Structure formats: structure tokens, C-alpha cells
């Protein structure tokens, strides 16, 4: 039971990170119907930005308060990653709107390869690790031989995720931008006829998706303390799995899917085998797409002839 509780905590932490990335996939798919293959690498780029920002803040500017440093890192990383998201959409996806169907997907694969190798060339191929911080935590139960431990990091990750998702939900549901975004998702042409700047809305969607991926990137770096240029692909595929599992196009679905994927991965590693945990994630992706392509909260796709 104690092991179960501990894994539950770990799974929810990991799941919140996947959920944050999954929102980027699901929003982009909802609005322009493409799988933004490069999103996982945008997440990795944000992790690197966070790493460098953190080193600058602590080593050079001498900010000793961890809370302040983290807040600044979060803001810097979100802003710069959002710029990356905007630039990628502008350069690699916007010229392809209305082009043939495979073009955006292949372009996205190109961006993904470019980003991971750009970081490799710019920062080197080695794993980069951060000095440990925010150590310690709360012992929930003191069983015999096994202590269920809730670390401060995990509290922070879940807390930040919940806070940002609340803000994000408000943005999508209650603001003019959110209304425009949802309108474009339903019918882009009609939205354009009603005076919505569709290009701007799509740009902002990418910016938002990248900013949320940046949050995930900062939290990932904080949680694992290590990042490498190849860290975008697998979390990206898992987050995409989460988006599909929750029903692609559905925002609560993405978060729900992220939590489920996080839990499955952690429990699989704990109870079965850690080597095959990625196989589990990929298999779930295949199974979900084959047997329930509309996901848990998604709408079934109707084909018009």
C-alpha cells in the first residue's frame, strides 16, 4: 500500500509535466489539424534555456533566494520559448497552410531534427546537470522500513501546474482571445468572415503552447536535474500519446491523458520492468489510436464525402 501511494505521487508529478506538453499538441491539432512533431523538441529547448538562465542568475547575478530565481527562470524560459514557438510557426508552418497534406508534418519533422541538432551543436552532446536544490520533503507515513515521501519539488511541480492550468483555462474560456481561438477551432473560414484575425490567433496558439511546454521544461529540469539534447523526442511522443488518449482537441482531455500516461509509466516501471517502460508508452499510443481514436473526452471525427 505504501509503495502504491508513493508511486501514485510520483505518477501524478510526472503526469502533470506530460499534461502541460500535451496541451500544446492538442491546441495546435485542434486549430490547424496538424501534429506539431517539433513540440517535444521545443520542450527540450525550453529546458536548456531554463538551465542557462538559472546558471546566469545564481552564479553571476548572485541571487541567493531559490524561490525568486525559480520564478525568474520560469518567466524568462516561458518568454524565450514562446518566441521560438512563434518563429517556428512563422517560418516552417505558415507558408505551408493550404499546401498538400503531408507538407506540414514533414516540415515539422525537419524542425524537430533541426532543433535537437541545433542544441547539440550549440551546447554539446553531454548531459547537463544542475546542482541539486529544493531538497527535502514531507514524510507522509512512517511505515516499517518504507517511508512515503512527498518531496518539496513534487509539491512545487503539482502546484505550479495547477496554478498555470487555472490561468490558462481562464484565458481560453473567458477572454476575447480564447473566444477567437475556440471559434477558429470550430470553423476557420467562418471565424475569418466574422472578423477574427485567424493568422494572429494561430500564432498565439503556438505561443501559448510553447509557453506551457516551457513550464514543463523548467519543471522537468527541476525534477530530474539533468537534460540532454535528445530529451525532446520521447517525452514529446508520450505527451502526444496523452493528448490522443484524452481526446485530441480537448484541453481537459490533454491534462487527464497526461496524468494517466504518467501514472501508467510509473506503475509499469515499479511493478513490471523499467526497461520496457517506453515500449509500454508506445504500445498505449498504438492501442488507443487503433481502438478509440477519439479518445476519452474527444469528439468522434465524422468524414464528409
Amino acid at each position: 500500500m505504501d509503495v502504491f501511494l508513493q508511486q501514485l505521487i510520483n505518477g501524478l508529478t510526472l503526469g502533470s509535466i506530460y499534461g502541460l506538453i500535451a496541451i500544446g499538441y492538442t491546441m495546435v491539432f485542434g486549430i490547424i489539424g496538424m501534429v506539431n512533431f517539433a513540440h517535444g523538441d521545443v520542450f527540450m529547448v525550453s529546458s536548456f534555456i531554463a538551465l542557462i538562465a538559472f546558471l546566469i542568475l545564481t552564479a553571476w547575478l548572485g541571487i541567493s533566494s531559490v524561490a525568486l530565481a525559480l520564478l525568474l527562470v520560469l518567466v524568462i524560459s516561458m518568454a524565450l520559448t514562446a518566441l521560438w514557438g512563434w518563429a517556428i510557426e512563422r517560418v516552417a508552418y505558415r507558408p505551408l497552410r493550404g499546401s498538400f497534406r503531408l507538407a506540414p508534418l514533414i516540415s515539422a519533422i525537419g524542425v524537430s531534427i533541426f532543433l535537437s541538432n541545433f542544441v547539440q551543436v550549440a551546447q554539446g552532446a553531454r548531459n547537463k546537470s544542475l546542482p541539486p536544490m529544493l531538497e527535502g520533503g514531507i514524510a507522509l507515513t512512517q511505515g516499517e522500513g518504507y517511508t512515503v515521501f512527498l518531496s518539496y519539488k513534487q509539491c512545487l511541480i503539482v502546484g505550479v501546474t495547477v496554478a498555470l492550468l487555472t490561468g490558462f483555462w481562464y484565458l481560453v474560456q473567458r477572454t476575447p482571445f480564447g473566444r477567437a481561438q475556440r471559434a477558429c477551432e470550430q470553423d476557420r473560414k467562418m471565424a475569418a468572415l466574422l472578423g477574427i484575425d485567424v493568422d494572429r490567433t494561430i500564432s498565439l496558439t503556438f505561443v501559448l503552447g510553447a509557453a506551457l511546454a516551457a513550464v514543463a521544461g523548467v519543471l522537468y529540469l527541476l525534477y530530474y536535474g539533468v537534460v540532454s539534447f535528445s530529451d525532446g523526442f520521447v517525452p514529446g511522443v508520450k505527451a502526444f500519446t496523452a493528448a490522443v488518449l484524452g481526446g485530441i482537441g480537448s484541453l481537459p482531455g490533454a491534462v487527464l491523458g497526461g496524468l494517466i500516461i504518467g501514472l501508467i509509466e510509473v506503475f509499469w516501471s515499479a511493478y513490471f520492468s523499467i526497461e520496457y517502460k517506453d515500449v509500454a508508452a508506445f504500445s498505449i499510443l498504438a492501442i488507443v489510436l487503433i481502438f478509440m481514436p477519439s479518445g476519452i473526452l474527444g469528439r468522434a471525427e465524422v468524414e464528409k464525402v
Partner: protein
Amino acid sequence: MADARSNGLPEILRDAGLYALVALGLCVPLISYRTEAGPTGLELVPRWPVVAAFCAGIFVLRVLQRLVLARRDARKRLTPAPDQATEAVGAEPDAGQRFSGLGLKVFLAVALTLPVLATLASGGLGPARYWIDLGILILTYVMLGWGLNIVVGLAGLLDLGYVAFYAVGAYCYALLSTTFGLSFWICLPLAGLFAAAWGMVLGFPVLRLRGDYLAIVTLAFGEIIRLVLINWTDVTGGAAGISSIPRATFFGIPFTADEDGFAPRFGLEFDSMHRVVFLYYLILALALLTNLATLRLRRMPVGRAWEALREDEIACRSLGIDTTTTKLTAFALGAAFAGVAGSFFSVRQGFISPESFTFLESAIILAIVVLGGMGSQVGVAIAAVAMVGGPELLRNLGFLGAVFGEGFDPNEYRLLLFGLAMVAMMVWRPRGLVSVRVPSVSLGARRAISGAHVSEGHG
């Protein structure tokens, strides 16, 4: 953005300045500070000159681009745009088509005589090894491209896990020869059959999927196979792979120096290059076989069904074509060629590991097919030369070290440029290099049509 802008110089400079500013924002943390492992954890090494050079480069490029665009706009205003005219469906054979007709002959001629040409050019069989090896590499990708072309170009099914079948073929030969001692010539067709079976097994569950979903599931399958190869250590040797795989023989005669070897039997002096040249002609034959099979299949009912499926699946079904079998044959045949290529790969290398079968390989093969103009056989060959041979050119750019400072290795930028090329290709020429098609079936004279009239499929 393209319509209502002035082309005055201040405007252009302002615009380019904006671009440079964005570039600055993009590379501020990632390029300006390099993280290096120091004695007390990570240290930052500032590199602001690189950032400045980068931003200046973007600025200059943007100014140039705007100037070129401005001139083109001015010219457009004088003459009616060609895209405003109605495009004739049955266009006369244009430069592109004539080029591709000629290209095929040139390609074949060069491919057939490459070992001779290389020997003459570099003065000896030994020094020619680099070129022949490069030829083998390119031809392997040509074969893979032609194989994937059946799935993507003809049947319109987007497969991002193609490398899995390549891996199946490679491991098939490696395992059969090291454990059962089967010869290469028995394993070659077996690998094809085995990979085809896997193509059916993996193709069956994804029959209902289309578009991006199909792409993602095939990618997942590809990754699953790779992860199983890494983790199933008892059979596959895990990440260490399988080494000392038996070499190819000349139809049973080994390429060794002793009496039963290839050279003494044919009265030649022993040279280790005989094997390499033989491998070169072997992969050339295999690739041409793939091409021939594809060309013949296109005329057969199954090939026509593939193309019909690509154009319109619903119309296909309503005309009584069994889409299940059609899709499965495409998957199986594409996989079979990949399996044969894989078994060639393992006999050539003598060593295989899961490292060689990453998603990147699938992406490269797909990029070759798309760059070639999906469905065009010549295009795929040209694209393979460009995609595989192009990066090799980078090795010869060492002199750039004088410009960029010591320790500059152009080869590091291979994949970075590759990714950029994929994006640029989609933006400028989404229809590929060879953008005309000759219809497989036609009434009367067979005339080339623009690639824009060919559907890219829904699956």
C-alpha cells in the same frame, strides 16, 4: 503580408532589423552561453561574437531577400502571373520531364560504371574504395526510397516506421547466419519474406487509420521494434548488437586469398576490393530489381488499385476494390524490399546494432521519397544522391576552419542542415524535385501531367 507593403529602403531596413531582433531573442541563451562542465559544476562560456555574426547574417539575408522580392513584384506587375492562367492538364513534356527522362539514362550509366570511373579517377582499385563505398551507401538508400515509394508514393499510406522492416531484415540475416549458419543467398529472400510478414502483422491493425494518425502509429511500431531489439538481450545482443556476421560470397565462393577463394579460381590476383565491388553490383542489382518490380506492379491490377486508393479511398471501395488487401499488399511489398536491403546492410557491415535503426533513418528515407516527388522513380534516385551524397561534401569543407576558427567540424552540422533542408524543401518545392508524372494508365497518348494533379492519399 506580401500585398500591402512598400519597398522603400527604410522600410526594408526596419523589417530586416526586426528579423535580426527575433534572431537575437532566439539565440540569446542557447548560443551566447555555452555550458561546459567545470570543476564546480557547470560553467558558462560566453560567445557573444557568434551571436552578433548570426544576427548580422540574418539581417543581410533578409535585406537581400526583400530586394529580390521587390524586383520580382515589379516584374509581376508588368506581366500577368502564370498561375492566373488555367493550367492545361495534359501539358507538353516540359523541361522537368525531359530532364527526368535523360536523368534516368545518366543515372543508370553512372551507376553501372561507377567502380570503373572511380578506379580511373583515383588511379587504382584501392584508392577508389571511398567512392565505391559511398556508391553502396547511396544505392542502399535508393533501394529503401524505392521500397517506401510503393507505400507512400503509390498507395498513399504515410509510414514513419519504415526503418523497422529494414531492421527486421538485418537482424534476420544476422541471426540466421550466426546461429544456424545459413548462407547469405538463402537468407536474402528469407529476410524479404520475413519482413513482408512483419509488414502484414503491423499493417493489419492500422488499416482503419488515416493521415497523421497512421504516421504516428507506424512511428510507434518502429520505436517499439527498436526498443525490443535493445532490451531483448538474450537474442539480439542488446545495445551491443551482433558482430562477426559472415561475409558475402560470390554465389558460394568466398572472397578469400586461399585456393578456394574468388581470385585464384578466376585467375586473378587477390584484392580485398573484389568483395566491395561485388557488393556494389549486388546492391545495384537489388535496387534495379526494386525499380523494375515497382514499374511492372504499377501496370498490374494491384498497382492500379494502389493508385486508385491514393486518389480516393471511398470511390475505391464503392467500385468494389478490397481496400484491406490492397493496403496490406502495399505494406508487405514495401517491407519486403526494406527487409532485403536490411539483409544486404548486415552482410556489408558485418556488424549491426539498434543504433542503426533509429527514427532518424525513417525520416531520411521519407525525406528522400518526398524530395524526389512522391511516386517518381527517377526523383527518388536523384533525391537519394542529394540527401546522402550531399552531407558527404561537408567532410571536404575543412578549409572553413580557417574562417570559423580551430576545431570547426562541418560534419557536426550535417543533421542540422538536413533538418533545415527538409523545412526549406517543403516551403519551396512541396511537390519534390520531379514534379511531373506520367500516368500509369491513359486513353490515347501518354502525356505528362503536373504533380499537383496527383493526390497524396488519405492514409
